[in-house]
């Protein structure tokens, strides 16, 4: 394609592609303006050049919001690492724990799981199935029991029995439910009380199919539990998860991992350039 064609329709389509990826309307307009400028500045001509400039610029914009930031999962220097999983209902918290636990187990860590979702039907059993698959132990409590008690037991076991990594699974909750958010904050306080440096990560699990509400989710979960990073799930579907750009922009929360399916190996480290390419790849294809 020649530059004229790229110049005229391309940026309108780009704006729509970004909106369609759920980055949000204002973000889409501001991004496509910045990208238009950049393409001009770099004097990119061919389709390939334009695509490259856009990817680089988008990655740049994404990364600017978190300079010097470490995108890895932080592990404790000594003693057990505690990873707390939070998020709204059905996003993939339990599944992500199942996948991650297998990964750490494979890397020779001694892994423990805490089934602190005592609320949802079958939640404990679900985590137990993952525990069995992964050959890791699961700490459970009675149905409808106090989830904080399960957390307390699990942290104690992790310390007493020298576990390397403890994954804490919590019940899904919508961010506008104040009582449930307080319950979550309480679980986090118990973890910190038992291990001063813990939790080492509070991972907010977001479903890539979620629209603008994910921003509110990030805001309110961050307020109540000091989220350290995001796991973006269900990217194997047709949704793009563009809202994480807005989350990055406003809340400076990085995506650390992405979920790409329901199987144990369907988890990957977040790759910013692959992600931003995904936001508008259809556009590039149809223009080929």
């Amino acid at each position, binding site marked *: 394609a020649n530059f004229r064609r790229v110049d005229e329709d391309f940026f309108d389509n780009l704006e*729509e592609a970004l*909106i*369609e*990826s*759920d980055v*949000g*309307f*204002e973000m889409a307009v501001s991004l496509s303006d910045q990208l238009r400028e950049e393409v001009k500045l770099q004097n990119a001509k061919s389709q390939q050049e334009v695509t490259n400039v856009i990817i680089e610029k988008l990655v740049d914009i994404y990364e600017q919001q978190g300079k010097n930031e470490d995108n890895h999962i932080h592990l404790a220097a000594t003693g057990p690492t505690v990873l707390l999983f939070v998020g*709204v*209902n*059905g*996003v*993939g918290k339990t599944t992500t724990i*199942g996948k991650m636990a297998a990964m750490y187990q494979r890397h020779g860590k001694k892994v423990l799981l805490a089934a602190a979702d005592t*609320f*949802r*039907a*079958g*939640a404990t*059993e*679900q985590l*137990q*199935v*993952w525990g069995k*698959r992964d050959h890791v132990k699961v700490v459970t409590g009675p149905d409808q029991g106090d989830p904080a008690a399960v957390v307390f037991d699990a942290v104690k076991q992790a310390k007493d029995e020298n576990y390397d990594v403890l994954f804490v699974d919590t019940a899904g909750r*919508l*961010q*506008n*439910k104040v009582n449930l958010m307080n319950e979550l904050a309480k679980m986090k306080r118990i973890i910190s009380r038992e291990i001063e440096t813990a939790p080492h990560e509070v991972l907010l699990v977001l*479903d890539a*199919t*979620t*629209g*603008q*509400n*994910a*921003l*509110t989710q990030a805001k309110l979960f961050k307020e109540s539990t000091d989220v350290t990073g995001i796991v973006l799930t*269900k990217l*194997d*579907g*047709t*949704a*793009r998860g563009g*809202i994480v750009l807005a989350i990055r922009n406003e809340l400076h929360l990085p995506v650390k991992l992405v979920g790409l399916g*329901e199987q144990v190996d369907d988890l990957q480290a977040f790759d910013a350039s692959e992600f931003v390419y995904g936001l508008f790849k259809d556009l590039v294809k149809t223009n080929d």
Partner: protein
Amino acid sequence: MAFEGLTERLQNAMTKLRRKPTVSEADLRETMREIRLALLEADVNFKVVKDFVKQVRERASGAEVLKGLNPAQQIVKIVNEELTSTMGTEAVALNKSDKIPTVIMMAGLQGAGKTTTAGKLALKLKNEENARPMFIAADVYRPAAIDQLEQVAKSIDVPVFQLGTDVDPVEIVRQGMQQARDQHNDYVIIDTAGRLQIDEKLMGELVNIADLAKPDEILLVVDAMTGQNAVETAQGFNDQLELTGVILTKLDGDTRGGAALSIRAVTGKPIKFVGQGEKMTDLDVFHPDRMASRILGMGDMLTLIEKA
């Protein structure tokens, strides 16, 4: 929230518009820009927004302005009416078979709320019709899916037909249907595994289940927080399965729920119920007018307009 300013922005836009007997092009331009933004921020799919805006424009252009309203308010009134009518005007009840059992099949993406909603529907049928529903546990993939359904079922005292996870879901449904006929259950609710609409193998499985059980209802369960992609999901399921209706879940959150409009616009299928919580009693009939004002996020202004 991002749209808190919408009503104010509209009010501002309106003060600029002098009182006139009809809606002018300038009024329309100004107001429709804000409406378009409101719909996009509410997660209505951008193609659906485009069509919708065009439709409203045609109706609003040159429309007479009612007494007590200014042109912008008149446009919002039209938008609200169009939104409500696009979403179906009135509540639609469940289909019922002439002879028992009436078969209801749940379908949707992973984690949308199918299993929970299956439980809610069964309880509703029990309470309202004194029905004797039975579940068929056709999710053999998600870890502990059957445990979950059994616990849900136990809490509302409904039987579950299950054959564990080593039997093909189509076969499970075949045997389950037989048992329901033998035991004269008046409703069968089939809980299926979550799947992507692009997963050919699993979508094929759903088609086979539907061919066999001939459901009176194939309900697409959709998370109300879904973004732009709601269109693709709904279209994908509808093309392959011929849905009879939609259930929107997790409306107890603070999402504006624009997916409702997107889904309705692309499938034409009625939204029958909405999920408003995790408890078995948290299922309500769908009210298009309430959904419209939720999507628009202009509660105050709509009240004002209704009074006019």
